[in-house]
């Protein structure tokens, strides 16, 4: 009886222990930085060291500009929300201001698409056809980008 229980406990301990040890050793690293994402791209697309170096350079060069644009997009969204709140509260629309806002937003959207397209195309140029196909499939999930890449 004791022997049976002892063996069961030992088996359970061995199972849980091996599970935890293996998982802890092989657990994928959690990263949200640009470096982490590029390292993931290298593995996913099987990039060579020279390809990776070039793609990293391209991404690092465009990163500050893209970040600034993302901040601008967020700011414009806040402005639009405020504009909408004022319209609802006062029931008046400043059409001149709204037209300016729409124009600025249109220009910003165009700039964003251009910058993204340039980065994607420059990165794709470094890749082999297979890698390029996989990369385009990956970025194609970004809906506004698809149209601009296919045109």
């Amino acid at each position, binding site marked *: 009886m004791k022997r049976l229980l002892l063996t069961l406990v030992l088996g359970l301990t061995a199972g849980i222990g*091996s599970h935890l040890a293996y998982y802890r050793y092989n657990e994928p690293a959690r990263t949200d930085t640009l470096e982490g994402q590029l390292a993931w791209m290298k593995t996913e697309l099987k990039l060579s060291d020279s390809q990776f170096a070039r793609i990293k350079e391209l991404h690092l060069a465009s990163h500050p500009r893209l970040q600034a644009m*993302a901040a601008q997009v967020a700011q414009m969204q806040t402005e639009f929300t405020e504009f909408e709140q004022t319209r609802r509260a006062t029931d008046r629309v400043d059409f001149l201001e709204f037209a300016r806002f729409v124009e600025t937003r249109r220009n910003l959207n165009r700039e964003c698409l251009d910058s993204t397209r340039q980065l994607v195309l420059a990165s794709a140029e470094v890749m082999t056809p297979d890698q390029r196909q996989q990369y385009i499939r990956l970025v194609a999930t970004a809906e506004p980008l698809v149209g601009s890449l296919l045109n």
Partner: protein
Amino acid sequence: MNPPPDPLDSLLDRWSETPDPSPRLSANVWQRIAVGESESARSPGLWAALQGWFARPAFAVGFVIGCALVGLFMAELRVSHVQRERSAQLARSYLLLIDPLLNAPTGDRRS
């Protein structure tokens, strides 16, 4: 000199007149034997067999190794599941990184 009468004598005299056995006696006896055997085979048998198996060192060692292997297999399944999830999450953050418009609500992207 006669011995005093034993009270058992009358009882023994009555016992000598044995009635005929019931016609189902033999069937009932066999039925009881069968029920007894099946009960004894059922209840302690499984537990005893389990104890017997675990009493063998080779089986006990095999059982522990088997548990460890099952643990490793489950861990491998967990790792690949987490890897798939992490990969999808990295793809989403990469797209957010290269496309500032993805942060905007859907209606704003086309304007």
